């Protein structure tokens, strides 16, 4: 059970060139808008024709530019969940789900429809029309409609983007459960990294038409291969970096020297750390035996969200001495830390400077 894709296509403004393989586990296509992810999905579904390449689904060649094979969308047996769900407004819920089942005997058709209705928790809504459904119900109908045809692959194009935030949690759970039962290959397109992380096992990070990273999700999040991937996966703190004596790395923009546990062969261009990995602690908690990667800092700005606080910190020196290098001045070279409200309340009234810890296990190095 696998979907192999290797395609190229000239799109407005960039050249799409991707190659990946999706097995049983859902594969996430992660990228900002205009990175080519929707185009990739449409090419797999047969709604766009690549300039070159090959698409093979479970050993069946769907597209091969050299062999001049281009199976039309209707014969590909690929289910596509559209961003806006694309339910037929003139058909009832049951008729929508039965749309792709014309060739089946009426009894079998009814069986499949009721099976999907149950699985999607849509009982009793058979005769409703899409316009009377909530966004979440529409999404479940669209998913049921695609699955009813028992497609060999399922493609999901930003399935949550058209929904209110409060609906997403439950629907995402429903989707994950559905995908766990589904035997075919799944490709999930999203610009939301957390969503892609939760739904998928493997990720392909797209940037301007090419895969900037691909592999197991933990690997990509822990060690992004490039600055761009680090940014796309939500990392907020970057500093130019160079090697320093004693096996340390000097973070030029932050103005500090850091121990890094990640082995790194090439000379690093950047050093980075995720905002939620930055620890902030009052000076009183400082222990002399742990002094590496801990620096005094001052709060420059803060942003509050309902459960977290984002702190903009500036490193002002070294433990027991001045900073080795003067930070390049200017607000852009602060370190962003994300802490929970409770934690914030525990040290917000403690006089500054505070301490910021950039743990050696959490900082990572990047080539340019």
């Amino acid at each position, binding site marked *: 059970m696998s979907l192999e894709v290797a395609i190229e296509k000239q799109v407005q403004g960039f050249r799409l060139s991707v190659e990946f393989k999706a097995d049983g586990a859902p594969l996430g296509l992660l990228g900002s808008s205009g990175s080519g992810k929707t185009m990739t999905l449409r090419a797999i579904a047969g709604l766009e024709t690549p300039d070159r390449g090959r698409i093979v689904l479970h050993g069946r060649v769907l597209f091969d530019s050299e062999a001049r094979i281009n199976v039309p969308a209707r014969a590909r*047996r690929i289910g596509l969940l559209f961003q806006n769900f694309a339910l037929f407004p003139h058909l009832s819920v049951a008729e929508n789900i039965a749309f792709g089942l014309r060739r089946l005997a009426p009894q079998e058709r009814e069986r499949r429809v009721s099976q999907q209705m149950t699985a999607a928790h849509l009982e009793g809504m058979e005769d409703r029309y899409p316009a009377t459904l909530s966004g979440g119900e529409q999404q479940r109908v669209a998913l049921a409609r695609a699955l009813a045809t028992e497609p060999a692959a399922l493609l999901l194009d930003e399935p949550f983007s058209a929904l209110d935030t409060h609906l997403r949690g439950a629907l995402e759970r429903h989707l994950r459960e559905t995908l766990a039962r589904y035997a075919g290959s799944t490709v999930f397109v999203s610009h939301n990294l957390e969503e892609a992380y939760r739904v998928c096992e493997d990720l392909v990070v797209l940037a301007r038409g090419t895969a900037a990273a691909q592999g197991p999700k933990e690997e990509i999040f822990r060690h992004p291969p490039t600055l761009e991937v680090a940014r796309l996966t939500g990392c907020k703190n970057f500093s130019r970096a160079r090697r320093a004596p004693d096996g340390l790395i000097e973070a030029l923009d932050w103005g500090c020297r850091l121990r890094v546990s990640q082995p790194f062969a090439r000379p690093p261009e950047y050093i980075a750390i995720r905002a939620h990995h930055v620890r902030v602690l009052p000076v009183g908690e400082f222990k002399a035996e742990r002094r590496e990667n801990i620096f005094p800092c001052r709060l420059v700005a803060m942003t509050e969200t309902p459960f977290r606080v984002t702190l903009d910190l500036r490193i002002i020196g070294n433990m027991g001495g001045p900073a080795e290098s003067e930070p390049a001045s200017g607000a852009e070279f602060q370190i962003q830390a994300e802490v929970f409200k409770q934690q914030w309340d525990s040290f917000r009234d403690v006089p500054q400077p505070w301490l910021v810890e950039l743990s050696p296990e959490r900082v990572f190095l990047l080539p340019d």
Partner: protein
Amino acid sequence: MNWQAIALSLKLAVCVAGILLAAGMPIAYWVTFSRWRWKFVVEAVVALPIVLPPTVLGYYLLVGLGPRNFPGRVLQSLFGHTLPFTFGGLLVASVLYSLPFAVQPFSAGLETVDRRLIEAAWTLGASRLATFFRVILPLSAAGAVTGVVLSFAHTIGEFGVVLMVGGNIPGVTRTISIDIYDQAQSGNYAAANHTALLLLLFSFLVLSIIYGTNRRAVSLWRKP
């Protein structure tokens, strides 16, 4: 009232509307969904009868369908007689003359169908023809109805083309509008007035139906 002329006009209009529904819809489909860069040429040709004086179209049809030209001779060998001054000739002329009045509303209706719905139908295994009948046509029904009604009404009301191609043969090519012309020419104003009033009321009714149903059709799928 000349019931023979009224019956003839109705027969002609029903035939024209039927033919245009069958022949105009594929043209409209092509015009709407084709990405061919010279598409506008076809669109312009289809729209010609809107701006062309009926006499010009009628003249070319008369000459073209006549025994001296190729299309006329082909048709002659097919039917055994030339088409001008027959009901068949009238039908051909009326279909061409009303073509834009069918194709443009059809096409406007098709335009309103969300492309993603069409693509969704394809990914669910529906052929292009099945997609047309199960998705596109139901969703553009207002345009289809408008096109049929407009071409029907336009045929009832046409005069110039009919006169050029069909002449004025009672029971064969004398339609309602030619009958009015005849009556007025012979000073029979009372009869002309009756028929004219009938046409006026008919036209008003048709347009009322179109505007009334269009508004309903738009909201048909939006609300339960």
